[in-house]
């Protein structure tokens, strides 16, 4: 490992310490050392997070087109007015909301159910845990491509199984009515295992003696669930609910790989539309206004979540 120039030895350090004691401030050498340690991270973060975020805010009010950067001009709120006249944006907003509203109960419900089933001493639990968690291990691209084949309208295993129980083949990803819900199910299937683990940790944090005391008082199983498990699980539930919400808002890879936003824009999501207008169509200004609007919403939800989780901690 290369030694850097800002090394201090023990003696210098004690001297510095006494100097600082006299002045009460922070020695410039302390600052230099600290900022040398912070340097690489600050550089990367400002380059690829802070500056892009500021740029996105600025671009949102311009008509920046990537191929003619010199012609960009300030257009005020025009982009935002146009957004709400843009049928594809409105559709993508509606699709995103549909996705969010459907995926949360399905995924969180499944995760809670699985965690409750597993919250019991059982030798086979490790196997079940691994099984439920296995889709989490696969990448979004892999699960998207895999389900593309599983859901094949003619030969896919899902339609084959449906035919066996007397249901005609479904055009899961090729029907404008079904596609977004198919993506809901696949996404919930992929993510539920991860949330199950968090729920399980939450369940196991509930002290056993609380249950024992309740049982002594003659509470039945159902009441113990309603009056003990659910309230004590609230911090975990809030955390999971809101992280699912934020994650759902950002839906992008599954529709991109499985349906390319189709059919008839029925699986176009907001983030996918940002990507398309900004990257494919190169309308950076317009895409940035969408990103700003959407980023603000997600930001507010994130802050609300932090506040809620913190309050529960106190």
């Amino acid at each position, binding site marked *: 490992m290369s030694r850097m120039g800002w090394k201090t030895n023990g003696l210098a350090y004690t001297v510095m310490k006494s100097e600082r004691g006299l002045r009460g401030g922070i020695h410039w050498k302390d600052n230099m050392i600290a900022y040398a340690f912070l340097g690489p991270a600050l550089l990367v973060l400002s*380059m*690829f997070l802070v500056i*892009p*975020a500021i740029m996105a805010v600025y671009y949102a009010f311009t008509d920046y087109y*990537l191929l003619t950067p010199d012609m960009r001009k300030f257009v005020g709120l025009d982009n935002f007015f146009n957004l709400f006249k843009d049928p594809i944006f409105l559709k993508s907003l509606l699709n995103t909301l549909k996705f969010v509203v459907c995926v949360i109960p399905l995924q969180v419900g499944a995760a809670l159910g699985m965690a409750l089933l597993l919250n019991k001493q059982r030798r086979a639990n490790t196997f079940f845990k691994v099984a439920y968690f296995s889709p989490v291990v696969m990448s979004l*691209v892999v699960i998207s491509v895999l389900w593309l084949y599983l859901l094949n309208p003619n030969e896919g295993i899902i339609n084959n199984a449906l035919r066996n129980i007397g249901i005609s083949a479904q055009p899961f990803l090729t029907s404008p009515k079904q596609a977004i819900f198919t993506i809901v199910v696949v996404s919930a299937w992929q993510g539920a295992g991860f949330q199950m683990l968090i729920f399980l940790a939450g369940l196991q944090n509930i002290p056993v003696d609380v249950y024992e005391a309740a049982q002594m008082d003659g509470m039945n199983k159902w009441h113990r669930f309603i009056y003990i498990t659910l309230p004590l699980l609230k911090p975990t539930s809030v955390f999971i609910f809101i992280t699912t919400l934020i994650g759902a808002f950002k839906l992008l*890879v599954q529709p991109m790989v499985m349906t390319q936003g189709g059919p008839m824009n029925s699986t176009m999501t907001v983030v996918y539309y*940002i990507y398309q207008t900004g990257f494919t169509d190169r309308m950076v200004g317009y895409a940035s206004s969408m990103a700003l609007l959407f980023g603000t919403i997600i930001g507010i939800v994130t802050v609300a979540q932090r506040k809620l989780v913190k309050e529960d901690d106190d």
Partner: protein
Amino acid sequence: MQKKFRPLTILEYVCLVMLAILFIFPLFWMVASSMKPEAEVYNNMNTFKAFLPSFHISEWFVSYGQVLSRFHLIGYIGNSLFYGGCVAIGSIIINGMAGYAFAKLKFSGKKWLFGILLALLIVPFETILISQFTIIHKLGLVDTRLAVILPALAGAFNIYLFRNFFMAIPESVIESAKLDGADNWQIFWRIMLPMSKPAVATVGTLAFIGSWNDYIWPLMVLTDKSKFPIQVAITAINSTDPVYINQVMAVLTISTIPLILIYIVAQRYILEGLGGSGTGIK
């Protein structure tokens, strides 16, 4: 002890097993389909044979051989390993250093900077994709490997995670190292990092997995196929005619294997790393 076969217990097991099937059958189908001739993939759908590899062992790896010779898969996997390795090592060093500064060093503007850092946790990566791309474009880094690696090197969450771990290391350890003549770099490298193995493992693993699974960003910044990571290659292979299902399944399987290995090895550390230190997940 309760009796073993009460109706409720049986019902529980039925639920557990049904759910397990629901969650793992695609994985089994993927692996089995990769190990048989294409014509057989959609045969025998109504029997268990759909989930079994070919009965002739000689056919098991034929699709793997074919797809390896048709596409430069080794190269794509090599790219992914390279990106993932750089991002993992870089993340540990860069975020660790910043975490050390926030946890153990005194400097002007610390509170202020830390506040900004926490605020950065809120910025959703997905919404600044486009302006991130314009930065890469302006830096002249489009279609370079650096464009894939650089933005992933520092993360506010990872810095925060390291800081929390380092905070727990007693000041006295540092004081005595200083008396022995160690400088800050040595303290960071020889004491802080080795004493925070769960944090190192967590950040390293999550950074590697994140990089291995990343799709959108490399898709945007790369045009040269020889630089593609495996995830981008998958969608390219899946749309390059002729598409053979068994070969696609082989690619999917290959790209999943490293992740399974990582989860097996690092699982314990990750739970310790994420659960232990006030990251919000309890």
